[in-house]
């Protein structure tokens, strides 16, 4: 009986529930001193002078440094393709380009002294003109990097076909805001560093990619790889924003080297809201065209990506957006082009979905707008255009090759669970009665790409002489439950109980290589590597067993039920895993062990359909989500409990983007949402329980048949909710409301539509 597919409870949990996790800030580090950054409160300014003398003289302050003291090179751009003139120094030097940019670092004996000293640093600025709106930045009138001569950091343009829409009977277009949001892991950025007795830098980091942190420290601090040891203790969420290395991390490492004392840094939430990368931040212009009877023939998406002050991962998000341009639809002609610009705002980065939610938001909103234009039910329009299950592998007009799917099945199941017809009936009833609370029904059919980056992954399985198993993985979980899931994979192959399997990750000394956890890659590449290592270790065990049995290797079988090997037909004589581990030790002096560097077999394409049901108070504009139905297909599901958990979290973040969350700046570039009192981080009180279902269409791409499930919830939910809100208002003459559909924005849209209707009536 297979353990795979079972709702195995998390092995990780008891610790978190009884004594709490061990996060970086919880690490004991005797004699450690505290690092605090003094950050810019100007969005764009010349730094005229920095006076740290009073701070330096304060009791308890060890030292105060600015960029000149560090002697470090600028932080390089994440990808070679972004504008090379736009790199940030480790600490701002000469010019500040966003509120929150670190300028000075203070090291003090206590957290309190560091905070007090930060108040005493006097920075004199000469304000420069500020540009926050990417549309304005695109005009290149106010430049963040005058030496670059432009604000454009990155472009994607494969040319356009002027005849794209020529054959279409109906063409509609719309400008859409995919607003800037804050990832908000509950734990902010945090690092601790010290020099070990043997002269190595040990660096603990709240990161999604410990090996990336190690490589960055090695490169920027001029160390040898063996001189740096990175450890990730428990990490309190990441959502993509902790996949990158930040300047602060390097500076913390530098302080430990410079001072020879253990140092620690944990940002406050107020710092995190301006320092940790933001997500999304696209202005999109979309055109969709097709026939009156609902065949979509052409689609074009133009993306203006806000990179924030320095081009980071955010600048290249449009690459992922473009990959998924045409969504799950068979559209004969589709194009996507993008321009990424710098603005005086926090640098943008990957946030749960990273470029794909933006693609889905655009095509799904346009499908609804097109359906409305041709007066067709949006579910029917989707059904007519979805790629059929017999058309895979399917190559889209932007040359993306979808592996496998049954998109119609997901749509049908979602509509069935939702009882779509009944919902439409209730909607009609409320429309007819002029109910103050109108019902909106929104759909989103999505397909996304997971494991989209080229990296492979490391996995190793070792059988200990006591028969217990050590698994090492290059993934770096921070809530996903890899310990449980990887144990299940190994237990399935070896027949050893999951309680006897230990999973080790996040320590660059123990796990030699790893790309980390991001982009919904972990199971299909990291899990697959562990799975392969388990298979390899079985082969090694069979060699050993054949020797012991003095039998033909081909006749040795593993009986998983008893976790032992025997010769086929002679189960009475067997050798346990422990005995084979002992045999390995006796033979080679080493453990029974296999390690794998699994090359990426390429991406997979999870898909599904979400249906959202909302109620809109048409007098105040307030939206309440009544139901959320999610049908997701991530191929084979290893542990439904974990997979559902991923979907749930994704839905909440997706609903939050549709309804509530937005990073807002004023015209001077001051962030107005830099605390969780101001930023509308969604809570339990704004959400319903979700109705989730899985369909399982295994992918042929990897041995597990699994696709990623980490981001689907976010990708599928946002457009469903957004469409539902717009749907609730459609009969009032509202065509579109930008996200987030806050009460004021919804009310304004209703008012404007009413004013248009009145004007028409009078005209």
């Amino acid at each position, binding site marked *: 009986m297979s353990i795979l597919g079972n709702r195995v409870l998390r092995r990780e949990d008891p610790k978190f529930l009884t004594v709490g996790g061990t996060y970086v800030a919880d690490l004991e580090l005797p004699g450690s001193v505290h690092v605090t950054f003094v950050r810019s409160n100007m969005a764009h300014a010349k730094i005229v002078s920095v006076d740290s003398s009073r701070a330096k003289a304060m009791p308890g302050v060890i030292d105060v440094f600015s960029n000149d003291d560090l002697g470090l090179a600028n932080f390089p751009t994440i990808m070679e393709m972004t504008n090379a003139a736009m790199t940030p120094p480790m600490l701002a030097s000469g010019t500040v380009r966003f509120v929150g940019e670190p300028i000075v670092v203070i090291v003090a004996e206590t957290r309190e002294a560091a905070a007090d000293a930060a108040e005493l640093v006097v920075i004199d600025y000469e304000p420069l003109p500020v540009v926050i709106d990417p549309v304005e930045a695109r005009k290149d009138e106010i430049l963040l990097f005058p030496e670059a001569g432009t604000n454009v950091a990155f472009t994607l343009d494969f040319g356009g076909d002027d005849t794209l829409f020529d054959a279409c009977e109906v063409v509609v277009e719309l400008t859409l805001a995919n607003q800037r949001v804050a990832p908000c892991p509950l734990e902010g950025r945090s690092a601790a560093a010290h020099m070990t007795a043997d002269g190595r830098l040990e660096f603990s980091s709240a990161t999604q990619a410990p090996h990336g942190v190690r490589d960055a420290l090695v490169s920027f601090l001029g160390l040898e790889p063996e001189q740096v040891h990175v450890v990730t203790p428990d990490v309190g969420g990441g959502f993509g924003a902790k996949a990158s290395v930040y300047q602060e991390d390097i500076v913390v490492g530098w302080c430990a080297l410079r001072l020879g004392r253990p140092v620690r840094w944990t940002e406050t939430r107020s710092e995190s809201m301006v320092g940790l990368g933001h997500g999304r931040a696209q202005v999109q212009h979309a055109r969709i065209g097709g026939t009156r009877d609902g065949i979509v023939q052409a689609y074009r998406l133009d993306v203006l990506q806000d990179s924030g002050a320095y081009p980071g991962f955010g600048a290249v998000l449009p690459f992922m957006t473009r990959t998924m341009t045409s969504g799950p639809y068979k559209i004969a002609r589709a194009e996507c082009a993008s321009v990424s610009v710098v603005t005086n705002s926090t640098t943008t980065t990957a946030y749960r979905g990273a470029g794909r939610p933006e693609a889905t938001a655009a095509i799904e909103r346009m499908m609804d707008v097109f359906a409305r234009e041709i007066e067709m039910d949006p579910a029917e329009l989707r059904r007519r255009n979805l790629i059929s299950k017999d058309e895979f592998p399917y190559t889209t007009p932007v040359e993306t090759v979808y592996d496998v799917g049954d998109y119609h099945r997901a749509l049908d199941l979602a509509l069935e669970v939702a009882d779509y017809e009944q919902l439409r009936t209730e909607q009609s009833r409320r429309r007819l009665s002029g109910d103050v609370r109108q019902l909106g029904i929104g759909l989103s059919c999505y397909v996304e790409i997971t494991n989209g980056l080229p990296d492979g992954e490391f996995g190793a399985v070792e059988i200990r002489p006591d028969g217990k198993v050590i698994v090492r993985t290059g993934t770096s979980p921070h809530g996903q439950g890899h310990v449980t899931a990887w144990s299940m994979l190994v237990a399935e192959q070896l027949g050893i109980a999951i309680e006897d399997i230990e999973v080790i990750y996040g320590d660059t000394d123990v796990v030699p290589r790893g790309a980390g956890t991001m982009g919904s890659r972990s199971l299909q590449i990291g899990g697959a590597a562990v799975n392969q290592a388990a298979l390899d270790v079985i082969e090694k065990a069979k060699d050993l067993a054949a020797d012991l049995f003095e039998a033909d290797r081909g006749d040795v079988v593993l009986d998983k039920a008893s976790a032992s090997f025997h010769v086929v037909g002679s189960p009475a004589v067997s050798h346990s895993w422990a005995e084979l581990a002992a045999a390995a030790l006796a033979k080679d002096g080493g453990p029974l062990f296999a390690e794998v560097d699994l090359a990426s077999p390429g991406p997979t394409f999870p898909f599904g359909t979400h249906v959202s049901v909302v109620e809109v108070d048409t007098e*105040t504009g307030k939206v309440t989500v009544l139901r959320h139905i999610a049908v997701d297909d991530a191929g084979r599901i290893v542990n439904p409990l974990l997979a559902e958990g991923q979907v749930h979290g994704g839905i909440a973040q997706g609903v939050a983007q549709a309804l509530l969350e937005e990073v807002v700046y004023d015209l001077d570039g001051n962030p*107005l949402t830099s605390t969780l*009192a101001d930023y*509308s981080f*969604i*809570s339990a*009180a*704004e959400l319903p329980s979700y109705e989730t279902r899985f369909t399982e269409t295994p992918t042929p791409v990897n041995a597990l048949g699994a696709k990623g499930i980490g981001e689907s919830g976010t990708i599928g939910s946002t457009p469903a909710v957004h469409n539902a809100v717009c749907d609730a208002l459609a009969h009032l003459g509202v065509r579109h409301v930008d996200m987030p559909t806050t*009460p004021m924005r919804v*009310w304004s849209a209703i008012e404007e539509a009413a004013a248009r209707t009145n004007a028409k009536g009078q005209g």
Partner: protein
Amino acid sequence: MIPASFDYVRAATVEEAIDLLVQHGDDAKLLAGGHSLLPLMKMRLAQPALLVDIAPLRALSYVRDEHDHVAVGALTRHHDLANSPVAISGASVLAHVAGQIGDPQVRHRGTIGGSIAHGDPASDLPAVLLALGATMVAQGPTGRREISAADFFVSFFEVALAPDEVLVEVRVPKSSPGQWGFEKLTKRAQDWAIVGAVAVRSSSGVGVGLINMGPVPLRASGVEAAIASGKDAKEAAELASEGTEPSADFNGSLEYRQHVARVLVRRALEKVGV
């Protein structure tokens, strides 16, 4: 985030707290539940030199039936007020609104006195007290005095307490259960109101209060007069935005807030049968 340094004293009596306020003047701040003051101090937006902790003065934590009114000790926590049988029967709107403030943790610490003395126009209780025609009792070096709710909220974050006075009691005329309506628009449950409205029916008529519609909590006297003259809820509520000066921010423009005030006042009035 960490507050700047300060000294901390626990007052054993109200009189001791007043003495400390007299001695230290503007350098001293009273600390009750701390849920208005401590967040400001952590942000270093407030840096008092001395905190006089009065929260342990249990003598100021009570809800009493005083025949024609309900007397609420200033250090009564929102949680206790919300669950007080006396408040639920004699001032049910007050109990209800106290049970809606912040979140459960905030209600376990925050007090009615601390909340009111902070003078935040976005906070819920002041508008309710205005609508109810409440009376505040302040104690200073020379004894106690009464301040009507109408006179209490002076300007933005400023109330009619002298620097050496302690708010000790809030007196609320009794109202019948069910004879009130409270409407609050928020983006999230835990948020401050974008706009809020409360209507309370009593023997002397209908009182209407507005939350976050200007630098101080407001009484919608135009609406009240319209009801007294026999207007219905819809007509009366149209006057709700008269004379209001709500701030404009990304949650609400002036125009939007005024519109929502009219909607919420109408809904609140409908609940009291106007």
